[in-house]
C-alpha cells in the first residue's frame, strides 16, 4: 500500500514537474545551506586544528606593541632587546623551550637558481618551540650562535627550488650576497593560517642575522613554549611582569608589548566560527520553514484540484486513512526529492568553497542521512494538514465538485 502510494506520488509529481520544482526550492535551498555550511565549517575547523598543531604546542608569543584587536603591526613599537630576553630566560619557570627571533625578507641564490624568501634569525631552541623537525642535519650549535657563524637551516620549498634534487647539506648559498653554509633541512609545514608558505624560509643564528642581514640588534618576537597547558597562564603573567620591569613601563601605564596564548586565540577563533555557523544555521532553518509552508500550500492546492478524484477513490471503497496516507506520502516524497537535490547542491557549493578557500572537503554521511530524514519530517509535518483535509472530504460532496 505504501509502495503503491509512493508510485502514485511520483506520477503526480512528474505530471507537474515545473510546479513541483518551484515548490521544492525552499527545501532545496534550506538543505543546501545547512549541508554547505556544515561541510565548509568542518573543513575550516580541521584546517585550523592542523594549523595550530603546526604552531607548536603550549606556545606563548611576545611581540612589541600594545595589545590591540586585529593582527599585530608592531612596526613603530619599541622592539625587544637582549636584556629583555635574558631577564625572561632567568625569571621564568615551567618553560620547555624559549627562543627570540627576528624576520626579514631576502633573496637567496644558489648557482643559477634564486628565490625570494623570509630569513629568520634566532636561537638554537627555536625549532623546539615550534615542534619543527629536520629531514637532515639539525639546529646550529651554541658556539655558532654565540660567534655569529654564517650557517643556516633551510625550509622544504628552498630545498626544492634551489637544489632541484641535489643534496643541500654542506653547500653554500647566498643570502642577500652573504655566503652561508647549509647545516640542516626542515620537514615541510605547509601554508600558514594567513596563506603564506612556511617552508619558504632560511633560519640562521640571531647574531649572524643581526650583523649581516638586518643590520640592527632588534628582536621582534619571543616564543616561549610551556611544559604543559596548565602552566601557561602563570608563564603569561610572569612574562608580562618581567617585560614591564625591563622595559620600564610605569605602573598604570598600558603594556607596550603583547603576550599571546595561541591556544586562546584558537579558542576565540573557533567560537567565532561557532557563532557564524549558528547564525547561518538560523537562516537555513527559516528557509526550511518557508520551504515547508510552500509544501503545505501546494498540497492544499493539489487537494482542491483533485477533490473529484478523491471523491471517486472514496466511492470505490478507499478508506479515509488510505486517502490520508496517499497525500502524506506525496508530501514526504516531494520533500525527500527536495532534500536530495539540496544535498547535491550543498555538496557542490561546499566542494567549490573548499577548493576556493583551500580547506579539506569532507563527506559527512551522517549529516547527509539526517538532511534527508529531516526533509521527510518536514513533509510529514506540513503535509499532514492538507492530507487530513483530503481524508475528511464527504464522498458525495467530493463527487459533485466540479
Amino acid at each position, binding site marked *: *500500500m505504501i509502495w*503503491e502510494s509512493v508510485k502514485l506520488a511520483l506520477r503526480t509529481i512528474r*505530471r507537474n514537474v515545473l510546479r513541483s520544482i518551484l515548490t521544492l526550492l525552499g527545501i532545496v535551498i534550506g538543505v543546501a545551506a545547512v549541508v554547505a555550511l556544515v561541510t565548509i565549517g568542518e573543513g575550516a575547523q580541521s584546517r585550523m586544528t592542523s594549523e595550530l598543531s603546526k604552531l607548536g604546542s603550549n606556545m606563548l608569543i611576545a611581540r612589541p606593541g600594545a595589545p590591540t584587536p586585529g593582527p599585530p603591526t608592531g612596526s613603530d613599537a619599541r622592539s625587544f632587546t637582549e636584556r629583555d630576553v635574558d631577564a625572561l630566560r632567568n625569571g621564568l619557570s615551567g618553560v620547555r623551550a624559549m627562543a627570540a627571533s627576528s624576520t626579514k625578507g631576502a633573496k637567496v641564490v644558489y648557482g643559477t637558481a634564486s628565490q625570494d624568501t623570509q630569513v629568520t634569525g634566532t636561537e638554537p631552541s627555536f625549532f623546539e618551540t615550534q615542534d619543527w623537525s629536520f629531514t637532515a642535519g639539525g639546529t646550529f650549535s651554541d658556539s655558532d650562535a654565540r660567534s655569529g657563524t654564517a650557517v643556516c637551516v633551510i625550509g622544504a620549498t628552498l630545498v626544492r627550488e634551489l637544489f632541484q634534487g641535489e643534496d643541500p647539506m654542506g653547500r653554500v648559498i647566498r643570502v642577500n650576497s652573504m655566503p652561508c653554509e647549509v647545516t640542516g633541512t626542515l620537514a615541510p609545514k605547509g601554508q600558514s593560517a594567513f596563506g603564506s608558505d612556511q617552508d619558504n624560509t632560511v633560519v640562521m643564528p640571531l647574531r649572524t642575522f643581526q650583523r649581516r642581514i638586518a643590520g640592527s640588534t632588534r628582536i621582534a618576537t619571543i616564543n616561549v613554549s610551556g611544559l604543559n597547558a596548565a602552566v601557561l597562564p602563570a608563564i603569561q603573567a610572569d612574562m608580562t611582569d618581567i617585560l614591564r620591569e625591563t622595559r620600564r613601563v610605569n605602573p598604570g601605564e598600558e603594556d607596550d608589548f603583547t603576550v599571546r596564548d595561541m591556544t586562546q586565540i584558537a579558542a576565540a577563533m573557533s567560537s567565532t566560527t561557532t557563532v557564524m555557523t549558528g547564525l547561518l544555521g538560523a537562516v537555513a532553518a527559516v528557509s526550511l520553514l518557508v520551504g515547508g509552508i510552500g509544501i503545505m500550500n501546494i498540497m492544499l492546492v493539489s487537494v482542491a484540484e483533485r477533490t*473529484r*478524484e478523491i*471523491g*471517486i*477513490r*472514496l*466511492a*470505490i*471503497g*478507499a*478508506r*479515509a*486513512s*488510505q486517502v490520508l496516507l496517499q497525500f502524506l506520502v506525496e508530501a514526504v516524497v516531494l520533500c525527500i526529492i527536495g532534500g536530495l537535490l539540496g544535498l547535491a547542491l550543498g555538496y557542490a557549493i561546499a566542494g567549490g568553497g573548499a577548493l576556493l578557500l583551500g580547506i579539506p572537503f569532507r563527506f559527512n554521511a551522517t549529516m547527509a542521512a539526517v538532511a534527508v530524514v529531516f526533509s521527510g519530517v518536514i513533509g510529514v509535518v506540513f503535509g499532514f494538514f492538507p492530507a487530513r483535509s483530503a481524508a475528511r472530504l464527504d*464522498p*458525495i460532496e467530493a*463527487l459533485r465538485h466540479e
Partner: protein
Amino acid sequence: MNAFDPHAREPIISLRGLRRFYGEGAARVHALDGVDLDILPGEFTAIMGASGSGKSTCMNIIGCLDRPTAGTYSFSGVDVSTLDNDRRALLRRNSLGFVFQGFNLLPRTTALENVELPLVYRGMSRGEREHRAAAALKAVGLEGREGHTPSELSGGQQQRVAIARAIVTDPLVLLADEPTGNLDSARSHELMRLVTDLNRERGITIIMVTHEEDIAAYAGRKVIFADGKIRSDVKVAA
C-alpha cells in the same frame, strides 16, 4: 435457478421510512420523504420518476455515499446507519459497485489502472490485480483497450470501463445512476445487454435509474418515484 428465486430469500436491501432533507427552515427540501423499499437478491430493478423526485438521493444512500436524515437502511440485515465511515468504506469496497452517469473515471490513467483501483485499496498483489482487471475488461468487451486513457475512449467505452471497475470486486449489488444518460440509443442498448448478462449470469443484484422506458424495459421490476416517495412498484415479465 433457485438461487435467484425472489421468494426464497430475505431482502438484501431494505429501506424503511427513509427521509433525506436538505437545508433548514423554509428553504428545506424533502428530497426523500418516507421511502419503504425491499430489494431481493438477484433482482434487476429500474427506478424512474420526474427530475428532482429523489432518485439519485436514494441511490447515494443505498450506495453508502450519503446518510439518511431519518429512517433505516439495512444491507444484508445489517443496519448501515450504525456503521462508522471505515465500515461504510469497506461495504462500498466489497459489496457495492457504482456506475455514474458521468463515468467518473480517473483522467490520464489507463483503463486497466482505473479498473485495478478498487483492488489496490484491498491490498491485492499487483499480479492478481492486473489479472482480475484484465478479465473484467474482457467481460465488458474491451479486450485490447487496457492501455487507453479515458480521453482515448468513446463515451460507450468509458461507461464499460466504469462497469468493469464496478464489477471487478464481484459485488453483490450494482448501482447505476442513469448509466446510459450520456450514450446514444445503439450504445445504450449494447450497454443494457451487458448489464442484463451480469444480472442473469453472475446473479448480481442491479438497481438502475433511468428516464427511458425502453431502457427500463430490460429490468424485471419498475419503481417510480414522485416527490420523494414511491408512487408505483410493479413487476414486469422479463
